């Protein structure tokens, strides 16, 4: 097992939580109800906490003197390894919660498997994070059900969100050479093996939410490999990294 592959794998984990945590935090003070303000801030906080663990470990593995903060604040777009779905703009609350739900179902499934990783550090981080991911999943699933099966208007918001996001879900189960190497060593599960559990979780909820799963299987890709992100990531980084870029070397 090469350190380079392990490093990439950790970036994939940490960049997902970093970028999604950033997106969720954009809701601060603007949610439809106060309880959602609290819940969204809490979700963002959990995701940033997980980022610190994943990127902290990634920095150790890289062993080039970079810290988790350096990785978060000083890499450019092409070095990010998050899936495209998490960098999509929030749009409306329905789109945000649908994205959260589709991600939580994946995240919970992935972290559950990672608890048994042959890499003890990964197993340890996953064991902590899976508790949060499970809670996030229960919450976002509940919201998807309530709004899908609410009023005709809320149903339409949720169906639109699902339709927009569906083509971005396929990337979660894509397997490249890095994944294959890591899976062979028992460090991560083969991404493809997560798909059935995910589909079952997602279908149950979406059915209860009276939402129709899009039939087109087309998948946008390029985030996990870094080959081609969306235009949105650059703008997100412009904001997130601004202080570190404008005042290099300062301590905060």
């Amino acid at each position, binding site marked *: 097992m090469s350190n380079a592959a392990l490093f990439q794998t950790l970036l994939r984990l940490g960049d997902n939580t970093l970028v999604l945590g950033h997106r969720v935090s954009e809701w*601060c003070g603007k949610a439809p109800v*106060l309880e959602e303000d*609290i819940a969204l*801030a809490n979700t963002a906080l959990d995701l940033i906490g997980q980022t610190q663990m994943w990127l902290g470990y990634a920095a150790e593995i890289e062993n080039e003197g970079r810290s988790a903060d350096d990785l978060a*604040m000083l890499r450019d777009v092409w070095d990010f390894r998050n899936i495209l779905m998490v960098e999509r703009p929030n749009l409306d609350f329905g789109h945000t919660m649908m994205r959260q739900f589709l991600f939580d179902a994946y995240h919970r499934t992935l972290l559950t498997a990672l608890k048994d990783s042959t890499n003890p550090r990964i197993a340890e981080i996953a064991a902590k994070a899976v508790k949060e991911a499970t809670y996030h999943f229960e919450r976002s699933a509940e919201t998807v059900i309530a709004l899908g099966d609410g009023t005709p208007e809320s149903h339409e918001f949720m169906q639109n969100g699902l339709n927009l996001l569906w083509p971005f879900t396929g990337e979660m189960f894509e397997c490249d050479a890095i994944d294959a190497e890591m899976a062979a060593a028992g460090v991560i599960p083969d991404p493809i093996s997560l798909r059935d559990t995910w589909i079952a979780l997602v279908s149950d909820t979406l059915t209860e939410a009276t939402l129709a799963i899009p039939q087109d299987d087309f998948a946008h890709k390029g985030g996990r490999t870094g080959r081609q992100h969306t235009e949105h990531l650059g703008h997100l980084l412009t*904001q997130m990294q601004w202080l570190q870029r404008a005042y290099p070397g300062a301590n905060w």
Partner: protein
Amino acid sequence: MYAQMIQSTGKGVKTLDEMDPQERAFQERINAGGKIEPKDWMPDGYRKNLIRQIGQHAHSEVVGQLPEGNWITRAPTLERKAILLAKVQDEAGHGLYLYCAAETLGITRDEMYEALHEGRMKYSSIFNYPTLTWADMGAVGWLVDGAAIMNQVPLQRTSYGPYARAMVRICKEESFHQRQGFDIMMKMVNGTAAQKKMAQDALNRMWFPSLMMFGPSDEDSVHSVQSMAWKIKMNGNDELRQKFVDQTVPQAEYLGLTIPDETIKWNEEKGGYDFAQPDWTEFFDVLRGNGPCNQERLQTRKSAWEDGAWVREGMLAHAAKKRATRLAAE
């Protein structure tokens, strides 16, 4: 404070002898340090004043998310981002406790929001000032939460039970808020020249607005006297402001920052600092809606409320459907 310029509805303060037996019993209970609970009889003015005060306090917590939310996405490190998220989450929670406390007085949260959006209810003037640099996150925690603590600690002993209990929960979290702010300031003043400049600039802009949080002098105000008699206001505005200045001046010295008031001087006789009053014309301008951020803050809240209408309606509709299914099954 978070509840500034609350006009009491009473005409003047009655003596015990002028009160009817019910009101007299109510006042005597308060005088003896007892708590008034939601089901107890209370004078109309007491109820109305409390609704305004607690409601304004709740709105301040909620609107107060915005100036700090302005920097969550730009926090310089993961650790700072996490701390700021935790703090802002607390503030939203404070809003929730306070709306619940106000609701025990016979008003709904939605009615309070409506009053806020229509300008009939206010929030603290401080949140109408902009947060322009990262140092402002330090200054807000250090000064704004610091000033809030001054007011909120004594309110834990306020006469209205649900309000007092909300304050107990809130005060537990506020000291963390102030500490994280001071900690940011420490980092800034020990940092680069640019960081020190940011820290001083933040103090320059935030100092007088922080003093305004306590409201104008209320020494001769009938409203204050009534609120104090009801123990929904525990201290005079000048008294709290003095305490705040006395606490903050040594902290600024420790940070090596200069408070933007040349007249600040220790006064041995009174055992406190002499200091300049803020510009009260500016304060009343801000209250009238002319602060640098009034329009944006209120518009952000209104848009959040309007854009979220379909969400609230959807959730209610779903809850009603579930109730109907449960009833049919029984």
